[in-house]
């Protein structure tokens, strides 16, 4: 009996240490003078942990900045972080938790479209803003009046990339590899549709599941279709792995992909294999604009790494939310939503934000490419 108890205790300790570590610390700090609470849902652990942690870093940095300049409507802000682990079920469970807590006025997150869509009905029913920095699935923002996304949809981004590939780069035959989730399927579909509309040919389409590390089989198959270029609907991690393995197979060709590839990590992980890669951005860390320089310097100072597109979007989300609360003149959940919906030309780091009626942001894009293991503006060449 005592051994069973020991086993259970041991397990409880192991799991407890791990799962409580993140949220607990934050909550303690927040009790000092009843601040206004924002919930952040992000994959702090699991396959998407590095993206989620960038959310957390940016949001905390934004809150510190807001509080340093007096907070919002005279009150300080605080964030409660929930770890969705990149799992839609967890994301939905957290949504239940946030919406049932009257202290919380709005929610930022989650990272993947799949998670956001899973949690959407809960925010919709409870009436709480669900502001995702990164969900770009076309169905997300239009699914509920409470849902907003600031990344711009694939319906906006992909025609731009297809045009880049066909008209600027002159590719006619493209093979597609995409991750098999809501985002990847959507991205690949919008790209192929638009590329075909311009007169291009899609030679082959292959997909892979989350967590896959070996892409050699898929690449070997795509290679046989003999394309001019490869379209890669992947996060920068997988993108780097795919490129590395492609180079090992001795297959050299240009690569095109969505804005999710824009990250220093892509260069670090991919090395020489990611040269000759073309993508678009709405946030460019080497941009000389002063507000971007200030953000990048501060981020690097605090966390020792360069912020990427996702980090900038999370920062924008928090700043936008604070701005909406100011405009609403209230912390009422419903008032915040109304103010958010009315957002016009909010100056974000990743481009100015105006919401469509459905809650999508309209974005402007800049063409970039990787050359000598560095991101460069394409049009300056």
């Amino acid at each position: 009996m005592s051994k069973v108890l020991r086993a259970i205790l041991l397990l409880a300790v192991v799991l407890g240490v791990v799962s409580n570590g993140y949220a607990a610390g934050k909550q303690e700090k927040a009790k000092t003078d009843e601040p206004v609470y924002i919930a952040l849902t992000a994959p702090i652990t699991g396959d998407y942990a590095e993206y989620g942690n960038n959310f957390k870093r940016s949001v905390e940095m934004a809150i510190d900045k807001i509080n340093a300049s007096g907070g919002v409507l005279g009150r300080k802000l605080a964030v409660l972080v929930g770890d969705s682990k990149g799992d839609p079920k967890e994301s939905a469970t957290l949504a239940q938790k946030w919406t049932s807590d009257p202290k919380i006025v709005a929610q930022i997150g989650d990272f993947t479209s799949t998670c956001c869509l899973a949690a959407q009905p809960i925010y919709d029913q409870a009436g709480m803003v669900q502001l995702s920095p990164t969900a770009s699935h076309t169905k997300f923002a239009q699914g509920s009046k409470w849902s907003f996304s600031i990344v711009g949809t694939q319906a906006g981004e992909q025609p731009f990339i297809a045009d880049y590939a066909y008209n600027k780069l002159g590719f006619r035959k493209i093979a597609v590899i995409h991750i098999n989730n809501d985002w990847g399927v959507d991205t690949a579909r919008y790209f192929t549709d638009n590329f075909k509309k311009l007169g291009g040919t899609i030679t082959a389409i292959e997909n892979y599941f989350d967590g896959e590390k070996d892409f050699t089989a898929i690449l070997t198959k795509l290679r046989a279709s003999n394309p001019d270029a490869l379209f890669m609907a992947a996060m920068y991690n997988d993108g780097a792995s795919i490129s590395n393995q492609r180079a090992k197979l001795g297959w050299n060709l240009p690569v095109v992909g969505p804005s999710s590839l824009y990250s220093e990590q892509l260069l670090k992980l991919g090395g020489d294999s990611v040269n000759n890669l073309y993508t678009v951005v709405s946030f460019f860390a080497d941009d000389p604009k002063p507000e971007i320089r200030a953000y990048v310097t501060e981020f690097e100072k605090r966390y020792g790494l360069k912020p990427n597109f996702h980090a900038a979007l999370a920062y924008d989300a928090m700043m936008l939310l604070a701005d909406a609360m100011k405009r609403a003149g209230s912390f009422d959940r419903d008032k915040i939503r109304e103010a958010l919906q009315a957002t016009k030309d909010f100056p974000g780091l990743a481009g100015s934000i105006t919401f469509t009626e459905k809650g999508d942001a309209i974005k402007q894009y800049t063409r970039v490419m990787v050359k000598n293991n560095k991101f460069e503006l394409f049009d300056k060449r």
Partner: protein
Amino acid sequence: MIVQQLINGITQGSIFALLAISFAVIYGVLRLVNFATGATYMMGAFAGWLTVRYISQNIFLAMLAGLCTGWSIGFLIEKVAIKSLRGVARIASLICTIGFSIFMIEIATVIFGAETKAMPSFFNEKAFTLGGATVVWYQLFLIGTAVTILLLLQILIFKTKAGLAIRTVSLDFKTAGLMGINVDRTISLAFSLGGATAGIAGVLGSVYYNIVNPTMGNLQGLKSFSAAVFGGLTSIPGAILGGYLLAIVENFGVQIVSGGYRDIIGFVILVGFLLFRPRGLLGKKTSL
């Protein structure tokens, strides 16, 4: 193209085979699936990464670090999950290995951060082309190393005194004890061996894929488990065969059907074997 897929499969299969052996050695002596195998693979990879980054750009040193780390983790898991839970239902130990797995992944996240790290390439030059397929030296190195480790383990298990002890404990630990074999130590040795194999596989795999991150072992561990079941969880030659076959079947599955079906192929094999031939291709009812 067929040649290329075969080479892809054999390279990937080498990693699967090492991990499948790790499962088999431990399952052999204890009839316990060590679900921390994938996490041990990851820890081995991190040990290799630290070595390459901070000590020396030497793959052999990295492999040694992976081996030692894996060995220690295996040893520790046995002490905590198995020995202290002796006499409790087997499920407690099983759950404890899952707990260990989560623990290691989270510890790695806390220490190293969730960001994927770049593992440098070694021997990345093209060795030769064969029927349109490109083979780099590292692939040959990986396959060669895996085969060497597999052979060494085979010799250890079948030709040495310690191996005989492992085999007897696997067949009948009570009688083994009566023959003067220290059952506890033999179980501990099996766990250490399994851990070491997984740790070294982690280094080999991370160099091949050029990445290291806390979750890199999850799918790898699960697939290797299918490979081990495929070949026969109680048979080391079976585990090796299972590892290579699974990878080759998966790769050709991608070629013939689609990449989206790759994992399905692996897990259909797993379920199929569990249902219809639970002892796998080569597994006997009760032997290592």
